[in-house]
Structures are given as structure tokens and as C-alpha cells.
């Protein structure tokens, strides 16, 4: 067992248990904090996979900006914990059964039907160097220039949409 495998196993334990804590937490603030832990763990996975730029984007955009927005809305609405409603009592066992089936099915497919010999090794100094980042930027701004610009338009549309949705119309009675 190499040290890399040990790091992987410990991190995946943290990732899975924080995801479990997220979906089972009673309080929405705790769920959001568990999700921050999960995102940071996935960022460390990206570092292990030789993607330092994506790891830093993950921490700043996901664990930083998006989760702060979530926490802000949770506290603004006072939606920390809602009263449990059991309109469909059979829904929860059925959902857990279906999720177990989905997990077993995908593990079966990966391990039995589509088993590959490919390995991922920890990145060396060359992978994390500045030249590598420059190479990625060259591809992003040449080969993927159109998707990049479309993404910027999408972000603009989302910003305008969010402002229009929450705007108070003058004189409107609520």
C-alpha cells in the first residue's frame, strides 16, 4: 500500500462521511458547513490529480462564493430547520432502496464490466509548474474561446435574472 493510496482512502472517507452528514443534518447551516468540507476535500483530490488551477477555483468559487451565498440565504430566510412533513411515508425507504440499487449498479459496472488497468500517479514538479498553467491558458483562450465567451454571457444573464427576480416593483402590494 503506497502512501498515495492511504491519502486517497482517508480523503475519500472524509468526503463520503461529509456528504452523508450533509444529507442527514437536521439544521441547514450544518448541512452547508458539511458541504464546504466536502468541496475542500474534492479540491485536495484535484491537487492529487495534478490539476492545481481547478483545485484553487474549486475553493474560491465553490467553497467560498457559492457556499457563502447559500449560508446568506439560509440565515436570511430563517430556514435552518423546517417542520418535518410526512405526506408520503413510503417515500424515504423507497428512495434509500433506489439509491442503494444505483450505487451497487455503478460499482458493478466499473469493477466488473468496465475494469481498466489505468493508474493515476501523484503529480511531479513539472505538472504543478507555471509552464503547465500557461499551456492550459493557451488551450482555453484559443481552442475553447467561443465556449468561454458564451459562459461570460451566461453569467451576465444570470446576474440580470437574479436582480430582476428579487426586485421590488414600486407601489406593488405584497
Amino acid at each position: 500500500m503506497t502512501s498515495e493510496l492511504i491519502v486517497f482512502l482517508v480523503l475519500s472517507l472524509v468526503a463520503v462521511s461529509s456528504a452523508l452528514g450533509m444529507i442527514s443534518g437536521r439544521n441547514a447551516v450544518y448541512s452547508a458547513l458539511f458541504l464546504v468540507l466536502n468541496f475542500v476535500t474534492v479540491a485536495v483530490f484535484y491537487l492529487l490529480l495534478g490539476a492545481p488551477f481547478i483545485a484553487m477555483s474549486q475553493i474560491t468559487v465553490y467553497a467560498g462564493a457559492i457556499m457563502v451565498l447559500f449560508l446568506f440565504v439560509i440565515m436570511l430566510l430563517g430556514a435552518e430547520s423546517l417542520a418535518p412533513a410526512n405526506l408520503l411515508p413510503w417515500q424515504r425507504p423507497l428512495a434509500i432502496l433506489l439509491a442503494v440499487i444505483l450505487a451497487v449498479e455503478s460499482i458493478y459496472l466499473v469493477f466488473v464490466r468496465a475494469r481498466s488497468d489505468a493508474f493515476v500517479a501523484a503529480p511531479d514538479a513539472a505538472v504543478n509548474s507555471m509552464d503547465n498553467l500557461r499551456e492550459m491558458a493557451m488551450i482555453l483562450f484559443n481552442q475553447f474561446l467561443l465556449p468561454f465567451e458564451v459562459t461570460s454571457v451566461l453569467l451576465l444573464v444570470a446576474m440580470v435574472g437574479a436582480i430582476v427576480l428579487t426586485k421590488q416593483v414600486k407601489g406593488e402590494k405584497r
Partner: protein
Amino acid sequence: MVPVDYYIILSAILFTLGALGVLIRRNPLIIFMSIELMLNAGNLAFVAFGRSYEITKGELFFNGQIFVFFVIAVAAAEVAVGLALIVEIFKTRKNINIDEMNSLKG
């Protein structure tokens, strides 16, 4: 050296937990967080496959990482609009229980 299969299994488990969260929770904010978890699981699989291809071919390969970059940007846009919708629903109904959101017109 970690087999790429392990990363794919981890990604599948995280995706399943996200789907389970969408199915069993009644708080729309937690359902939203579960969707983020599923997007994240997909991103992990993309980066793992990209790295595996890079090692197998022995050359630089960034398409997986660039796709993840776009997914992160789209997720940010999605969260901005979705949270604005939730705030607006709360303002008109004073309640955000998902079981009571059964009509489009507020």
C-alpha cells in the same frame, strides 16, 4: 499509484448520495446543495479520466480540466438564479416547504 477505477467509484458514491439527498429532503435549500454535490461528483470523474489519459499517453491533456472549469462557472450562474427564485417564493408564501410548492403561479 491509485487505480483510476477508485476515483470513479468515489465519484459514483458521491453522486448517489446527492441523488438520495434530492429524494429524501424536504428543504429546497438542501435539495439545491445536493445538486451541487452531484455536479461535483461529475467534475471529479472528469479530472480523474483526464489525468489517466495524460499518464497513458505521456503528453499534456487539459480538456478534462477545462470542461470542469466551465461546469464550475455554470454552477455559479445556476446558484444565483435558483437562490433568487427561492427568496422570491419565500416572500410571496412565507414558507419554503417543497411539498407546498405545487403551483407555478404564486
